[in-house]
């Protein structure tokens, strides 16, 4: 842990010295581009986004050349502690007093909603890579808000469909008790019911719960076929581990992690996690391009990237490209440009940012390998199928976003 702390410090220093002073004139409002990375640096979502997101953003800036139109690109980062008020007041100060041009990461739906709402008033682009709730692009959509990596509509399409088709008709949910969990539970429930399944019960667990045993026993006594975990990060890991301790799976019920990251699988271990199916936007060892980037990331971060880390890299890169091509940091112009671009890099192929802010791209249904199938520490997933973008995301015909209809 001391090691990680030192790495963090080195990272922070590197970020501070990244400011490359260059001459040439441009139409940037304050003679620089400043990107804010607002993430959970200390809690339940630290390993899936957190300090790794700062590294991913730094890599994007370095790969871009460190400057745009001859002006420096800077990073500022902070810990929102999963508290929406802290997130919002940090963002407010960044925008009012620190000249931040774009805010990314935001791996907590409550925080994301509050920051996106504020940024909408202040006309600042947010590129959300970490939060899940579809409210960001539906009921509370913003002309400056972009939802980049996944949402709670895309997650159950593959996972829940596969579970129901394999006979898991009756579902019981253990739900993280805030915007993200509620949204994921509702959207998953809708998929289950549309396929002829049934939701038999639900229990809300506070964010960052250590002991899931009483919730798991409730789920067990409900007689459901599937226990759907509408939570994420450390919460999912704890729930799955404790289900194993209480022999829930051995007693005949299946667990469905509705949002699982590769770091979660790594921390549970294959013995416990094997066979688990979930939906992701990115698999690090899918092809040579992803592997090359992921190994560079691993070298700096000490762990392989989650889909969110790769998403931060991709989002920052495309934002900088849009600034470069339009020659301005004016949010309306840049957002319009982003809407015209077709996004292609190691993370996304043929992605499009829809008018409601949703970045439409393909997702993958994956399964955790058996211990015997794994060749290395991070070789953990098999891709089962691709979920095309038009199935994964809400179509512009159906969106409730007021910007579209």
């Amino acid at each position, binding site marked *: *842990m001391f090691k990680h702390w030192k790495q963090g410090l080195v990272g922070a220093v590197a970020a501070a010295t990244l400011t490359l002073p260059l001459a040439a004139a441009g139409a940037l409002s304050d003679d620089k581009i400043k990107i804010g990375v607002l993430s959970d640096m200390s809690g*339940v979502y630290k390993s899936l986004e957190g300090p790794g997101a700062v590294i991913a953003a730094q890599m994007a800036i370095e790969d871009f050349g460190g400057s745009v139109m001859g002006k420096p690109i800077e990073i500022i980062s902070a810990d929102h502690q999963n508290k929406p008020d802290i997130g919002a007041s940090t963002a407010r100060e960044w925008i009012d007093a620190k000249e931040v041009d774009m805010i990314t990461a935001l791996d907590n739906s409550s925080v994301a909603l509050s920051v996106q709402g504020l940024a909408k008033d202040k006309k600042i682009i947010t590129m959300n890579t970490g939060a899940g709730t579809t409210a960001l692009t539906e009921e509370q959509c913003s002309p400056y808000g972009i939802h980049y990596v996944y949402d709670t509509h895309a997650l159950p399409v593959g996972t829940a469909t596969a579970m129901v088709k394999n006979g898991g008709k009756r579902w019981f949910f253990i739900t993280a008790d805030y915007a993200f969990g509620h949204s994921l539970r509702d959207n998953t429930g809708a998929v289950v019911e549309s396929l002829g399944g049934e939701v038999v019960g639900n229990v809300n667990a506070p964010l*960052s719960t*250590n002991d899931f*045993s009483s919730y798991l026993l409730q789920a067990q006594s409900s007689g459901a076929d599937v226990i759907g975990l509408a939570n994420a990060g450390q919460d999912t890991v704890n729930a799955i581990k404790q289900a194993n301790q*209480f022999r829930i799976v051995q007693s005949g019920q299946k667990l469905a992690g509705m949002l699982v990251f590769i770091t979660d699988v790594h921390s549970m271990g294959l013995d416990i996690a094997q066979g688990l199916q979930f939906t992701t936007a990115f698999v690090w060892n899918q092809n040579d391009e992803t592997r090359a980037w992921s190994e560079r990331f691993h070298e700096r971060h000490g762990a392989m990237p989650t889909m969110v880390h790769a998403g931060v890299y991709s989002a920052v890169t495309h934002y900088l490209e849009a600034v470069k091509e339009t020659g301005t940091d004016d949010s309306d112009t840049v957002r319009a440009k982003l809407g015209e671009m077709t996004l292609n890099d190691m993370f996304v192929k043929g992605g499009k940012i829809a008018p409601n802010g949703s970045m439409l791209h393909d997702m993958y249904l994956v399964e955790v390998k058996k211990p015997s199938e794994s060749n290395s520490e991070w070789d953990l997933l098999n891709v089962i199928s691709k979920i095309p973008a038009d199935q994964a995301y809400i179509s512009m015909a159906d969106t409730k976003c007021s910007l579209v209809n």
Partner: protein
Amino acid sequence: MSMQVILAQALLGLNVGVFYAMLSLGLAVIFGLLNIINFAHGAMYMLGAFIALIGYSFLEQWFGISVQIGFWASLILVPLLVGLLGVTIERLLLRRLYDLDHIYGLLLTFGITLILQGLFSNYFNVSGTPYPGQPESLSGVVDLGFMYFPTYRLFAIVFSLVVCFATWFFIEHTKLGSRLRAGVENPDLTQAFGLNVPLMITLTFAFGAGLAGLAGVLAAPIYSVSPLMGADLIIVVFAVVVIGGMGSIMGAILSGLALGLVEGLTKVFYPPAASTVIFFLMVLVLLFRPAGLFGKEK
């Protein structure tokens, strides 16, 4: 609601209850002799869990010592270490505050809580790090008929009960215990009889702290080890103490166990109230029996 569910949740409630009991017992012992509410009691519990975790997983990585301290060794070593910290705090800091208003003791220990909590938050994730050192012999599952229950949790319940009742027996039924009680009742007179009261106070504080550390080691394999684990617990334990009253050791133990059960059963009948039921009971006790169920007003 089936009987099976009620029994299962009751057992889980008891599982929580033994931790309430151990912590409120330590608080009661310290309060009895020093008249101080040790806010840092939760932090000592957290510290206990962290020492066990560090001893098992991080000694080599951090300090280059290639030793691994297992669970059983931790169960003995950790309370001693936390007790030693208790001695330091009592001798260096608390002792100077005895002549002042007792709230200064509370404020001091609150400050210590912030320091310990902040220190560990720097190096460990606030949502918890798993303790991997649970002994192989306790890793199985027991089929209780109405449910499968992890062997380790059963062990934690039994072990804590033994510790609680041994403490009660020691204080209420041994010679040393009776001297201790005399020190509580009348420190000046006890001193006059040639007993070293300051030493007794130090050892009592250390004992209370050690008890919290022991609870921390026991909790480590069940809950993830987190810098906030003590803070979340200690406020509930305060309510337990107000309900039980500070008067008796047995009162602290019984109210801890009972309130754990109550909380577990609330989860069956009305889950949203599970986190508040103890506080509402506290309000009722304050209204109808202000000194607490087992307490005598001081």
